[in-house]
């Protein structure tokens, strides 16, 4: 009797011990924090969409349907992987970062086997929780754009979220830091190449062709990455920086002399903190740069998980007033003419003092001045004095194609802009490069950036290596259809704003809204141009 009892007890105990036994394994977590290391291997697949499902999901929303008209119907399915990798911050700090690996899939021709790779850099986003790989998030419009434009057409897409976003523990974002951001792009490329063979999508492989592109901030990042990779001897098949702030010193001068770009109150704290962390000399205390109204907490304000509209509405940032509407008086000892000229250039726009394109947006620049304001007049004056002493050459009087100032700036912010200006080092591309943008862009000025870079490179590269596309220009050449498509979409949008469905806005109000949306509207058309450009290489 008791033998049986013992047997049952032993069986129970054995079974309970079994509960501690094996179960299936998850991914490996890397112990190395060396930059370029894939932190979680294999990576997590957020979603897998076949071509039909992807098309149906896009067609299910108005914006998706519009995007489909530009991208065309998906030819391939797309697997969306969430890559976690190690990189370094703006001051060389090790940090984990994340991003996307989007892999074309399916039986259709050009969706598996050896495929070209697109390394993409996204535009400025105030949302710290941004995860460009998360196609299930309806606010991830840029992730959907690059998936539909590139991955669904057979390109493997690799795109970082950037340090300071998502899982990154870096307490700031190294915004427009050419060295850090190009390094991070190369790190995610290394990690993605490690990851790809171990994914569900291993039928698709890296075919060896590498294209680099990115929009807005990402345009700068893409160009910096092209420069860094070419400097390392890597072969790049082609590049397409889009609507980026490349000529940083010239662009900074344009803004400080009153051409306040749309979005500047978001860009300013991002760039101030980024360069302070990297170089340590932008200010002694944030109050040197920022007005007392906004200085508290400004270094950790962006990116933020708080919606940007809430940040504006709660008074943490001004909506548009970058500068003080009270014009500072500049005094250059012994030079009354220059003093008067600089004082005039620092006045509120609205006169003929502002010769820089896009002149059509001059009225918009006035909105960059107000009270309360973000940037102190005292800081602005030190910047202007340095610009006068060590002129960039591209502004305030435009002179296309000029190199950086021979004299390195002494004002710390201008020094930082100079360091991250992509004319720095007299570099010019080896690979075919498309520069696309729109010349009415109120956010990243086309002529100051794209125009300056193109003219600067012109004598340095062989003819035909650089292609410049202005989507607002007269349709002509191989991208005429894209120019026409953009201009028709702008006309349709304007008509919508003036229609009952769009609020029956006055022509002036409708035009203002159109201008405010211009920078974002250019993105899919320039991405389409980039894809067309890459397909020929």
């Amino acid at each position, binding site marked *: 009797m008791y033998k*049986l009892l013992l047997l*049952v007890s032993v069986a*129970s105990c054995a*079974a309970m011990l*079994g509960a501690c036994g094996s*179960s*299936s394994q*998850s991914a490996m977590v890397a112990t190395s924090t060396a930059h370029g290391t894939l932190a979680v291997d294999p990576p997590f697949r957020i979603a*897998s969409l076949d071509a039909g499902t992807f098309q149906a999901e896009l067609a299910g929303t108005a914006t998706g349907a519009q995007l489909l008209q530009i991208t065309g119907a998906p030819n391939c399915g797309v697997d969306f992987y969430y890559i976690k990798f190690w990189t370094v911050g703006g001051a060389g700090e090790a940090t984990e970062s994340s991003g996307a690996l989007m892999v074309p899939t399916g039986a259709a021709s050009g969706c598996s086997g050896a495929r070209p790779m697109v390394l993409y850099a996204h535009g400025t986003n105030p949302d710290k929780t941004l995860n460009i790989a998360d196609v299930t998030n309806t606010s991830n419009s840029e992730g959907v754009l690059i998936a539909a434009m590139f991955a669904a057409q057979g390109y493997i897409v690799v795109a970082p979220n950037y340090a300071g976003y998502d899982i990154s523990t870096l307490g700031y974002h190294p915004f427009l830091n050419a060295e850090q951001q190009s390094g991070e792009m190369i790190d995610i490329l290394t990690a993605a190449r490690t990851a790809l063979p171990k994914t569900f999508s291993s039928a698709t492989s890296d075919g060896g062709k590498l294209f680099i592109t990115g929009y807005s901030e990402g345009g700068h990042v893409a160009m910096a990455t092209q420069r860094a990779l070419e400097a390392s001897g890597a072969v790049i098949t082609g590049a397409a920086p889009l609507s980026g702030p490349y000529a940083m010193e010239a662009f900074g001068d344009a803004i400080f002399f009153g051409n306040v770009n749309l979005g500047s109150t978001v860009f300013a704290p991002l760039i101030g903190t980024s360069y302070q962390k990297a170089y340590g000399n932008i200010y002694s205390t944030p109050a040197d740069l920022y007005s007392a109204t906004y200085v508290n907490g400004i270094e950790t304000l962006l990116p933020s998980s708080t919606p940007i509209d809430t940040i504006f509405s709660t008074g943490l940032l001004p909506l548009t007033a970058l500068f003080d509407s009270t014009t500072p008086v500049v005094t250059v000892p012994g030079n009354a003419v220059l003093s008067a000229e600089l004082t005039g250039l620092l006045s509120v726009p609205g006169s003929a003092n502002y010769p820089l394109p896009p002149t059509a947006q001059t009225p918009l620049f006035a909105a960059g001045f107000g009270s309360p304001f973000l940037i102190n007049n005292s800081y602005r004056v030190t910047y202007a004095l340095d610009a006068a002493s060590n002129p960039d050459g591209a502004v305030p009087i435009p002179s296309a194609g000029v190199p950086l100032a021979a004299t390195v700036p002494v004002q710390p912010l201008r020094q930082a802009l100079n360091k991250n200006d992509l004319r720095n080092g007299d570099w010019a591309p080896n690979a075919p490069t498309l520069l696309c943008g729109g010349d009415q862009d109120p956010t990243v000025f086309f002529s100051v950036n794209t125009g300056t870079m193109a003219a600067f490179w012109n004598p340095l590269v062989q003819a035909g290596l650089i292609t410049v596309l202005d989507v607002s220009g007269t349709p002509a050449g191989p991208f005429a259809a894209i120019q026409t498509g953009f201009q028709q979409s702008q006309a349709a949008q304007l008509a919508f704003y003036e229609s009952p469905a769009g609020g029956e806005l006055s022509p002036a109000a409708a035009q203002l809204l159109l201008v405010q949306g211009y920078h974002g509207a250019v993105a899919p058309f320039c991405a389409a141009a980039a894809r067309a450009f890459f397909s020929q290489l």
Partner: protein
Amino acid sequence: MTTHNVRTRIALLAATVVFCAAPASAGDDPNNSARLGLYSVFYHVKADDLSGPFVPAGANIDANNVETAYLAYVRTIIPHWDVELALGYPPLQKTVGKGPATLGSVPYNGQVIATARWIAPTVLLEYVFFDEGSKWRPYIGAGVNYTTFYDRNSTAAGDAASGGPTRISLTPSVGWAATAGLNYHIAKNWHAYASYSFSKVTTDLKAETAGVIRTTHIDFAPQALVVSVGYSF
């Protein structure tokens, strides 16, 4: 020590005390029986939708019914009162996706996404009607069930739906159990039994995929039909 561990230990201790301390009844009638049979388990799963990152709304799970061998030891402690320790041979339990037909384009609803084996010792105090010499003797009982899971594996379909190789954990369960059955005297020392049982089995499921964790709480609400033969000694 967690509350759950305390409850588990109390249940096991109670089972041990019942078996070791129960006095034998007077007389020559056998006080013990061993039973062997078949165990059909029918689940009535109620689970919360899976929660965690990247989970579409409505993604839930279900469990396939299982059949397995039944093994029990029963001791008569006083006339009409038995204590039963029941076990089932650990079956391969299949968990299936329930909800959207696909997650993205990955098949989900009805797919076997995970497997596990469980062992569920149950201690029941039973009242047996009629005299011991009766041909038919109905009985009812109530007690405690302990269920633990092992050999937990995400299937290929589960890995595909989850986004990668997935590690699954399921917390053990302690809950009530109740049964009603019928005892048929076949011959000396041999009986046939049929019973229908209910028990409370709940678990917290955690699935970890490349650092991404999804969870749900599952109430299996199993019901079991047992058909067995027993030998008294």
